[in-house]
């Protein structure tokens, strides 16, 4: 059956490699050409800096600018100035059924345009899980259905399963931009969520939070507060003295801009 090859070839032309500029951390990922006019979607953990270089299926390379990043949903939008790109066709991730055939294209371990196939394993609350073999270079690349329509962005490997961000989430990101973020990396600790990294220009840093602070409350509640639509979020936290609860107001502002 040459069907897989046929679907894969189209998909391959809509898949790019994303190389970080400044090269020392060698990790390359993948991306999906979302519009012929030069919008490319990838994972936020692939496009870490303000810009990147993308490589098309035919080897042509273009500089790209990161126009939006949503670390909470692990999505990023890139802009390239390139003529008439082969845009992918988005599918309907809400209509997916376990058992459906899926195809992933990416550059796992540096092999550009590599194809893996499998089925939809299950549909989680946040991710689509696929019984398909992925490797780190698949991050940001497309997961497509049997028609070649992109139904997810491959993002992680969880307990041997490929985990993809649903295309519905990607569409929301393209239309409505990034959701507000604090600009921190958190890890759960005994008392709450400890700040392990902080963006220098991020909302949390501006509000005076530092690495090592422990935010009180659950992650879900924090996300709900960020998504509530208000311009500020009150954050209670501990620093040094665990008996003294401190408080700060983080201005998240209206920095959401549509990625498209």
């Amino acid at each position: 059956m040459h069907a897989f090859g046929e679907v894969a070839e189209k998909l391959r032309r809509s898949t790019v490699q994303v190389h970080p500029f400044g090269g020392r951390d060698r990790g390359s990922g993948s991306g999906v050409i979302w519009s012929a006019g030069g919008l490319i979607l990838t994972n936020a953990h692939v496009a870490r800096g303000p810009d990147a270089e993308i490589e098309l299926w035919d080897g042509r390379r273009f500089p790209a600018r990161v126009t939006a990043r949503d670390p909470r949903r692990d999505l990023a939008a890139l802009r390239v100035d390139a003529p008439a790109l082969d845009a992918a066709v988005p599918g309907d991730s809400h209509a997916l059924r376990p058992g459906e055939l899926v195809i992933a294209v990416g550059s796992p371990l540096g092999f550009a345009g590599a194809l893996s196939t499998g089925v939809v394993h299950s549909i989680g609350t946040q991710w689509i899980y696929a019984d398909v073999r992925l490797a780190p270079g698949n991050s940001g690349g497309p997961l497509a259905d049997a028609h070649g329509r992109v139904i997810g962005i491959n993002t992680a490997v969880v307990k041997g399963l490929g985990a993809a961000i649903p295309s519905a989430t990607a569409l929301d990101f393209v239309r409505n931009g990034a959701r507000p973020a604090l600009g921190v990396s958190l890890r759960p600790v005994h008392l709450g969520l400890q700040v392990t990294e902080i963006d220098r220009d991020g909302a949390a840093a501006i509000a005076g939070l530092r690495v090592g602070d422990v935010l009180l409350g659950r992650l879900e509640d924090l996300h709900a507060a960020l998504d509530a639509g208000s311009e500020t979020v009150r954050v209670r936290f501990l620093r040094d003295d665990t008996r003294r609860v401190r408080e700060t107001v983080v201005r998240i502002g209206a920095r959401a801009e549509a990625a498209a």
Partner: protein
Amino acid sequence: MSTQLAALSDELAAAVKQAERHVVAVHARPRFSSSGVFWKPGVIVTAEHTIRREEEITVTLAGGNTVPATLAGADSGTDIAVLKVEAPGGPGGPPHTDAPAPGTLALAIGRSEDSGVNASLGIISACSGEWRTWRGGQLDRYVRLDLNVFPTSDGGAVINTAGELIGVATTALSRIAGLAIPVSTIERIADQILTRGHVSRGYLGVGLQPVELPDHHKGLIVLSLESSGPAAKGGLLVGDILVALGGRAVAETEELQGTLESHAPGQTVEVAILRGGDSRKVTITIGERPRRG
């Protein structure tokens, strides 16, 4: 043509949809849940090795409800456990009782509480006749799977693309691959568990060792004899060499156990022996193997 691919994709999704109503999540071990399959109304079969406690077992049904279940019994030899639930839900259509040909497309279907039904795809990689597991039970068929059986799908359904049940998935019977415990074995074992609460196996009460006979045949020499056990009562003596049981030659102890599997306790069986170089026949009433613990 990509329409062929889409048709196959639809067929697979439809098979999952058909089977998923009969697949439940089983909560009977720490960390991971496993899966189970409705066998009869109110009766669920699963893989015995995923049942790590006898009480406070619950199952999550296709509708998302989680209900309590009781352990009707389990057989570690064949890795089959039977649960009872007071909930509507019965088996799917008639199962696939023929031997699945190697190369047949197969899906493993499981369920978890968070993400609902799940599926993985692969093929039946091998299928052969009766097979004794390392745990001592007898499967009517050895059905090896070339597909991923994820921890939460262990004990779930293995189906073909028509949605018919081939067996119950287990990762505990082979180190190299998942197996499907065939439908006919489930029928035999689950029926015993439901009527008696356990699986009884034929028992002779002898310690045996394979020996080579002068005519290059093999037999099993009696090294020890349980006093007033079934074999002792039948007149067997230490030093006798068993050559056949119920008309089937026995050269290895596994063969003897396999032959005993098909004899229920209480049945009589004719045993051909060599005693002092002479062929003799003795009749033994098969006993029941004492159960551990």
